[in-house]
């Protein structure tokens, strides 16, 4: 295993294009993350079409680096203007901005950089250790288990729809119906194509992703396009001393473990990881009264945790093909488009690619640390790029991205349609990420359910006679019920 891993590192380090796209991806990711309103999901969705003409390793170098970079980039605006660039950086504002007000901007940003890099690297080490074991276990799966796994994956919708579970589930089922457009995966009978040949293969994933994540964000930005944003001021570049770094190490280790664990739980993303780590840091600290007043620990804990969630979220994605959150759902789409099916067989049949992905994620976090420390002032300037310029550029990239998948103008109109649907859903407080989860996992559930029926000659006893299937279905039911129970006091 170690030798294979070293091969993965060698293939990344000896390929100039992979390395170059990794650096480019980190830079793009940090910039996207630093700009409030632009999320890691949107960044990955918009840049995904760029990878069509690339080798898989080069494409993943770009996408995974954007993912890691954006997760860190969110802290820059959280510290400088008290506005988290990404939801995962919301907890960082609590102490990061207070540090900035005290004049310790350089220290706050350096803490965020070191903690993010540390968390990311540690989570990749966990990913390397745990995911092959999980994949080995999943090799026992047949159609009924994959059906149950897909149902379990779909049950994540309940936990990511904490605002209103019913609306989240509605979005999820809507996504499953969208996924059923095209030829039926088992009988090859056309469904809801209305005579359009473009729909025979279903709604393409890229136009859907770009439509749901990029265009609505642009429409939301347009709403406040004439509102003046806060002006960035100059700041001191005094960084951390070695003593301060060493004193933060135990906290970063603990927070990274929390972050990686939460990231690996499907549905719980970087934002939950960051707040949990922050609360735990405060609870276990001797100076808990100072949390919220601007202390380094208040930045180190959430930043280690949110970046550690990236490696954690990749564990179920690679070994079980279950995305942990919206970004990994987009990444899963990227893998499928490249003809790569994640899951247990990936580790057996394409172990080289798996090791390359491990190496890319590890090195992306190292590059992020180096680039972050040397480019703090430059990235901070990204905040001064006016939205009026960014919005048309993102729309241009969205249009070209949705066209390039199938060289089809039809896809551009699909993107615009889903852009409007996504915008209206966001306005109505219906989250859109369940649609993506459902579009990816819906066909997996249907295909494996119907294959199971063929295997068992139409008998549905596989739902309660196969232990792994029963466990997954039980967890799925528990996830939905516990989310509903948790929400009940809120609504009353």
């Amino acid at each position: 295993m170690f030798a294979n891993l070293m091969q993965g590192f060698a293939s990344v380090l000896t390929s100039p294009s992979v390395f170059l796209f990794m650096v480019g991806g980190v830079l793009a990711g940090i910039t996207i993350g630093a700009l409030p309103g632009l999320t890691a999901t949107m960044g990955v969705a918009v840049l995904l079409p760029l990878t069509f003409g690339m080798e898989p390793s080069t494409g993943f170098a770009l996408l995974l680096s954007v993912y890691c970079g954006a997760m860190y980039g969110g802290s820059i605006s959280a510290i400088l203007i008290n506005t988290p660039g990404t939801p995962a950086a919301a907890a960082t504002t609590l102490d990061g901005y207070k540090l900035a007000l005290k004049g310790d901007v350089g220290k706050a940003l350096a803490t965020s950089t070191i903690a993010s890099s540390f968390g990311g690297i540690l989570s990749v080490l966990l990913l390397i250790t745990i995911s092959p074991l999980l994949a080995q276990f999943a090799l026992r799966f047949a159609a009924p288990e994959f059906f149950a796994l897909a149902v379990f994956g779909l049950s994540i919708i309940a936990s990511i729809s904490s605002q209103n579970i019913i609306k989240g589930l509605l979005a999820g089922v809507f996504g499953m119906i969208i996924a059923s457009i095209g030829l039926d995966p088992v009988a090859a009978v056309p469904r809801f194509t209305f005579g359009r040949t473009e729909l025979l293969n279903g709604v393409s994933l890229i136009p859907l992703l770009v439509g749901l994540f990029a265009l609505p964000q642009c429409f939301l930005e347009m709403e406040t396009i004439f509102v003046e944003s806060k002006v960035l001021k100059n700041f001191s570049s005094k960084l951390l001393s070695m003593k301060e770094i060493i004193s933060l190490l135990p906290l970063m280790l603990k927070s990274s473990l929390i972050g990686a664990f939460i990231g690996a739980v499907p549905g719980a993303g970087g934002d939950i990881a960051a707040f949990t780590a922050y609360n735990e840091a405060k609870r276990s600290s001797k100076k808990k009264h100072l949390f919220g007043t601007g202390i380094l620990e208040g930045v180190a804990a959430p930043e280690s945790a949110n970046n550690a969630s990236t490696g954690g979220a990749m564990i179920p994605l690679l070994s079980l093909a279950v995305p942990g959150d919206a970004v990994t759902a987009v990444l899963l789409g990227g893998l499928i488009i490249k003809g790569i099916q994640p899951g247990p067989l990936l580790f057996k049949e394409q172990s080289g690619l798996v090791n390359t992905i491990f190496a890319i994620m590890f090195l992306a976090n190292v590059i992020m640390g180096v680039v972050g420390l040397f480019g703090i002032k430059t990235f901070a300037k990204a905040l001064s790029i006016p939205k009026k310029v960014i919005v048309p550029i993102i729309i241009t990239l969205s249009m070209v991205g949705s066209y390039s998948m199938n060289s089809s103008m039809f896809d551009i109109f699909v993107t615009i349609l889903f852009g409007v649907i996504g915008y209206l859903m966001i306005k109505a407080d219906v989250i859109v990420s369940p649609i993506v989860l459902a579009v990816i996992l819906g066909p997996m559930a249907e295909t494996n359910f119907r294959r199971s029926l063929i295997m068992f000659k139409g008998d549905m006893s596989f739902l309660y006679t196969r232990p792994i299937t029963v466990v997954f279905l039980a967890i799925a039911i528990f996830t939905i019920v516990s989310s509903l129970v948790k929400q009940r006091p809120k609504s009353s």
Partner: protein
Amino acid sequence: MVRINLIVSGVFALFAFAVIAATTLIPVSADQPLTQGSATFPLILSFVILGLSLALFLTNIGQYRKQKGVPREAIFKSEQMKIVAGGFLIILLSAILMLVVGFIPAMMALNLAFLLYFKVKNKILIASVSIVTPILVYVVFQIVLSIPLPGGLLFS
């Protein structure tokens, strides 16, 4: 939010009815007796949507009645909606333009239209973003990555 939840439940219920109607157009497949057929899965999903819509309606209608007459904050503010509608129109017209004149002219028009719509005053910025962005994207996709971009009816 209570009122919007009621609207959401209505919209999804209508969608479910439309799907149920559309499933009647799905042909019967050969494996229907064994695998429940091609229409069954979307049909089940439609009924799930109806159930969830009903649940959303019932959990909000009581609160809606209580809040009747209480002033509420508008979710769709008219000033914001005007800006968004204009932006949507620019995107739609550029897509139609792309069908005719191809990628570069259509995207130049889109960028120019947006910058003027957003009242950007700096002429150098307007010119550079409108011209450089489409050309740069074209070079990266068409030339570097060999991904074809639309040539349009006039030029292809």
